[in-house]
């Protein structure tokens, strides 16, 4: 694809602007967080055109934002953030994405690398058996349609009530694992049918469960509050979302909005995938109720997987959970739309913040973060690809002023799946990881190539830009020693 060589102004070393007059119809400028080096690869695809297109959304305020892990999505770029006014703005399912509440959960342990290394193969095998994953896999939870309705309404609490985890887990989950406007009546039969067998499954694609070792601590005091005490400590990272359920919800509502956006509300946009309706319209409210159902399903999903992860550690390490100290550090959603309050041009506004491949990053003192983290800020979890590393960061005041309390969400793809498959073989990727001390277990060895390090940007560069730009602050880094993938 041709290089994007349009109008781009440098603000400083980490910020770039697409001016509002780049094309008629933009309501606000675009703001991109990137270093000069990263910008090169960003310009190789059309993602900045998408940043400009998002600026067309009625009611968008301040900027159409792109996090440093931006890459081309459909309609919205992945790594995009857009805030629209609740009063006269729109909601766009494309600004949330197909995998509603795809997100990340991080668990701590008292274990060290020395204790886990000798048992890592056994542990990964046990996790692979205990956590259903892969294409066409069914969950081990059998629920009725009525129970699925409860999952949609209660979110992660449903799992806790059924013995999957502890109420303390909820305290350290974004929104306590439940958005309150969920209404199962807004969910199609098709979505329900896809949702029932897939609850409690990791899925395929870029979803994974990783056993990690803390390799660096940048902010010792903040890390301590999170339960990260020392280099060499073992953590577990879970990355998954709402599975086929969320995809069906997105497709269903995109289809509805497609029909009414132009006809009923006179909204014309440069891309069908940006289809949107006023937040306060019937279709807008319906989508938000359905999106909440899917978000709650995803939190339940991660909660169930957390439970089986703990079970697996107890079995293989031969210790109780309290001895293991397997507490949850935090759980973040990185594909979601939220109603949040911001001050824009000295006016207090309630905004609908679309985060598509972006993480909420609230600072210390914010009313919506758990008591435990009030002093240090909300933990931000940024997974890298399976061969490199992941980061733990915190939110900042600057993010509140500039990026609607948002920062990056991961490494961001640099190479397409087909290109990765062509240049690499899954078996070679597995061997290479083994040689670096990373045990991998997957249901599909060929799909491993798609998720190889080479296919991704280096998450270190991404996190560094967010850190230098001041929209999140690095706390610690962890490297994988074992991975399960669908």
């Amino acid at each position, binding site marked *: 694809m041709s290089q994007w060589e349009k109008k781009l102004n440098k603000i400083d070393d980490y910020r770039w602007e697409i001016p509002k007059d780049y094309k008629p119809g933009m309501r606000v400028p675009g703001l991109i967080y990137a270093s000069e080096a990263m910008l090169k690869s960003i310009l190789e695809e059309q993602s900045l055109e998408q940043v400009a297109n998002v600026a067309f959304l009625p009611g968008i305020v301040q900027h159409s934002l792109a996090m440093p892990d931006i890459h081309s*999505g*459909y309609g919205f770029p992945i790594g995009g953030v857009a805030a629209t006014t609740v009063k006269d703005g729109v909601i766009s399912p494309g600004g949330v994405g*197909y995998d509603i509440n795809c997100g990340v959960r991080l668990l701590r342990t008292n274990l060290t690398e020395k204790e886990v290394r000798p048992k890592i193969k056994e542990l990964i095998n046990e996790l692979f058996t205990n956590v259903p994953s892969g294409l066409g896999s069914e969950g081990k939870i059998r629920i009725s349609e009525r129970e699925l309705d409860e999952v949609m309404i209660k979110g992660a609490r449903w799992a806790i009530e059924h013995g999957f985890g502890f109420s303390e887990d909820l305290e350290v989950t974004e929104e306590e694992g439940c958005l309150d406007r969920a209404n199962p009546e807004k969910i199609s039969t098709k979505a329900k049918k896809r949702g029932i067998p897939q609850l409690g499954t990791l899925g395929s*694609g870029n979803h994974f469960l990783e056993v990690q070792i803390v390799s660096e601590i940048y902010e010792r005091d903040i890390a301590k509050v999170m339960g990260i005490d020392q280099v060499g400590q073992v953590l577990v990272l879970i990355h998954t979302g709402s599975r086929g359920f969320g995809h069906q919800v997105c*497709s269903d509502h*995109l289809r509805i909005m497609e029909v009414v956006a132009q006809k009923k509300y006179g909204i014309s946009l440069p891309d069908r*995938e940006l289809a949107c309706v006023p937040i306060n319209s019937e279709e807008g409210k319906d989508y938000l109720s359905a999106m909440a159902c899917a978000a709650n399903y995803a939190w339940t999903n991660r909660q169930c997987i957390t439970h089986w992860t703990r079970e697996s550690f107890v079995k293989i390490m031969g210790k109780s959970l309290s001895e293991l100290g397997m507490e949850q550090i935090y759980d973040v959603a990185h594909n979601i739309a939220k109603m949040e309050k911001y001050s824009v041009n000295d006016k207090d506004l309630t905004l609908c913040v679309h985060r598509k491949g972006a993480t909420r990053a609230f600072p210390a003192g914010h009313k919506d973060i758990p008591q435990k983290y009030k002093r240090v800020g909300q933990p931000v979890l940024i997974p890298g690809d399976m061969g490199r590393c992941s980061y733990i960061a915190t939110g900042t005041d600057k993010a509140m002023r500039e990026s609607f309390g948002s920062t990056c969400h991961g490494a961001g793809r640099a190479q397409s*799946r087909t290109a990765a498959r062509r240049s690499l073989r899954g078996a070679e990727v597995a061997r290479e990881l083994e040689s670096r001390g990373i045990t991998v277990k997957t249901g599909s060895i*060929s799909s491993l190539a798609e998720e190889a390090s080479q296919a991704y940007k280096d998450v270190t560069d991404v996190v560094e830009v967010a850190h230098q730009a001041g929209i999140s602050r690095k706390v610690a880094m962890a490297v994988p020693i074992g991975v399960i993938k669908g």
Partner: protein
Amino acid sequence: MSGEVERTFEIINHTADVGIIAYGANIKQAFANAALALFSLITEPKDIKERLQRDLEITAEDEPALLVEWLNELIYLFDVEYILFNRFEIDSLTKTQLKARCYGEKIRPQWHKLKTGVKAATYHMLKIDKNGGGYKIRVIFDV
């Protein structure tokens, strides 16, 4: 059938996802080849036996939406009933309605090698082109 000697489909690159280009001497054949391309992403179509038949009727507000709905219906049947299809006979096709007979079988985990989990067909870069020789369709899938 001319489609058997001509190009049927190809897989294209898109950073986070995968896409297909399907060809057809007529629009029906192009829609059928798009479906075949979809299942070639999921598994090897040559490994799919014709053990069952599903008759589908799809309606939508325009042709691009009809294409997206057609492919999404097949993804849905794969996701919920674990059916892999490898042959599609499109009996009627207008801009807003499609009737098709689809042939395939349920996944046999030890038999079929599953490749990519396709979750949804999207409108992103969607194209239905008519040129002298026939039709060309482009679809990007969310995986």
